[in-house]
């Protein structure tokens, strides 16, 4: 078939108009927006207690009602967004930077003992339930936001190490790597100039999905009292406190949970949308 006879491809829509990506971007945009605004403004100071105004249902003055101390639930959710995103960013950042570095190193030393050591350690960490790591860290170091970040970060590490190694190994087989080597670049220069830029997309997609998991993990740890500590508001802890008053004031349990669900859904959809853009072949399979 000559070029002139080739079928004209159907006009493709730009990748960013896919429904997953648009909805994901809208939801994450909403949460990130709330978190950013909370630095400048919240309806009420989030830790301000107004006992006379306690356990009020949603109203014009308090859109999401007030809790058992008379704190404004919307203000707490806005600041909680900031804390959740911060933990997610820290945990995924640790996991991605350390994990990808180890994965890239394993790809350079492929099939050597260092590669084996890194990958077996990743397998091992993977088999180890993350919440147990968090529990051990808390058992000896006490609960706190930073400990939660470390625990969730450790959980993220093996995902990125494996992904980076697998993707990097594919790049290493390309002809332009041979060319770069012939031009006199060493392994690290090739990794920095050719391998990393080519696998960055895959890493970002995975980071988006791991971010959603990190938000869920942080909420769970905070619910158990092992994550963000009071008076710093966190969605998980708000749910824990809501449980006592749930029979009479169900909204206390509804809004923080919905905030978690919306954030996780947003990042999951965003990740799906980005993955579709990166590899359209995957679209059907999911």
């Amino acid at each position, binding site marked *: 078939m000559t070029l002139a006879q080739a079928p004209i491809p159907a006009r493709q829509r730009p990748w960013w108009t896919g429904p997953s990506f648009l909805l994901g971007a809208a939801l994450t945009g909403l949460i990130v927006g709330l978190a950013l605004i909370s630095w400048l403004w919240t309806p009420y100071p989030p830790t301000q207690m107004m006992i006379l105004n306690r356990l009020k249902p949603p109203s014009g003055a308090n859109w999401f009602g007030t809790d058992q101390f008379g704190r404004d639930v919307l203000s707490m959710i806005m600041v909680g967004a900031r804390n959740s995103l911060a933990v997610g960013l820290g945990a995924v950042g640790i996991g991605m930077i350390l994990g990808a570095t180890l994965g890239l190193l394993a790809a350079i030393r492929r099939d050597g003992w260092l590669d084996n050591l890194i990958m077996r350690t990743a397998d091992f960490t993977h088999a180890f339930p993350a919440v147990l790591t968090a529990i051990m860290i808390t058992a000896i170091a006490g609960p706190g936001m930073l400990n939660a970040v470390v625990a969730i970060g450790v959980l993220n590490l093996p995902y990125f190490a494996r992904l980076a190694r697998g993707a990097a190994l594919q790049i290493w087989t390309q002809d332009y790597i041979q060319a770069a080597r012939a031009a006199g670049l060493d392994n690290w220069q090739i990794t920095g100039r050719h391998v990393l830029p080519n696998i960055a997309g895959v890493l970002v997609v995975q980071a988006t999905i791991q971010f959603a998991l990190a938000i869920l993990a942080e909420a769970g740890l905070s619910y158990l009292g092992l994550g963000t500590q009071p008076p710093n508001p966190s969605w998980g802890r708000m749910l824990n406190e809501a449980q006592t008053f749930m029979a009479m004031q169900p909204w206390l349990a509804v809004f923080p949970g919905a905030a978690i669900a919306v954030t*996780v*859904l947003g990042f999951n959809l965003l990740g799906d949308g980005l993955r579709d853009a990166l590899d359209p072949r995957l679209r059907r399979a999911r």
Partner: protein
Amino acid sequence: MIPYIGRRLFALGATLAGAALVIFLMLEVLPGDPAAVTLGLNAAPEALAALRAEMGLDRPAPLRFVLWIGGMLTGDFGLSYTYRVPVAQLIAERMAVTLPLALLAIALATLIGMPLGILAAARHNRPADAAVMVFAQAGLAIPNFWFGLLLVLVFAIGLGWLPAGGFPGWQAGLLPGFKALAMPALALALPQAAILARVTRSSMLDTLQEDFVRTARAKGLSERVTILRHALRNALIPVVTILGLQFSVLIAGAIIIENVFALPGLGRLVFQSIAQHDLIVVKDLVMLFAALAILLNFAVELLYGVIDPRLRQVS
């Protein structure tokens, strides 16, 4: 097959030993003095010395490690500092709640997730498919402890059908026991069902592309028989493995869910032990959970090798 199993067994042993070492280092060596962690800042020196002797802390760390492993292998898990009973007894008691809870959750997840996945694949790109995918996205996004709270709102507080929490014990009868576990199991099952629905769907879609499915259709079999008798069997392999691999997620869920519903299971025990600084119990339980997760991973890998002989060559 034998060398394959041998290699896997060696890897299993190494992983278990590695896990034990990490747990031991983190909970007995890193804190400096586990007895001081257990008793807190204001402990009397005599009490500290007594506990150190009881925990065997006067012995060198490598010996303690060997004694700990040897004890666990022979069923001696040590003595709980707060409960003053053998940890093995505590675990056995709590297992009577956690094990049925986990099994019930896996059963519910399978009963919900697999049929939905099959339905979605059979009705690919139609409304039923879209509905299942929406369910799957929601199931992955909703934190299971929040879903548990919502279930309590509806079925315990609203309708009054089920208890909001607690466990009457199996001696109270099977029905009260299962009623107490129904909502926690459903909450635990939701994300698993969502994952299963997605995996079943994508695995079925792949299988439906295969030649033997076209042959089955070509020879005039109904769509129902084609899907259920021919495609499903082949699509099941990844589905079964996902069930095994999700176990560690289930453990994490159980620790939280047991606290939501105040169930006296292993998850609540490990959490309470942290609050009470009962490091002996924490150490044993974390090792138990890790060993279970590692053994299940191993079983799944072995199953892979049985199902697909090509995989025996790879590792």
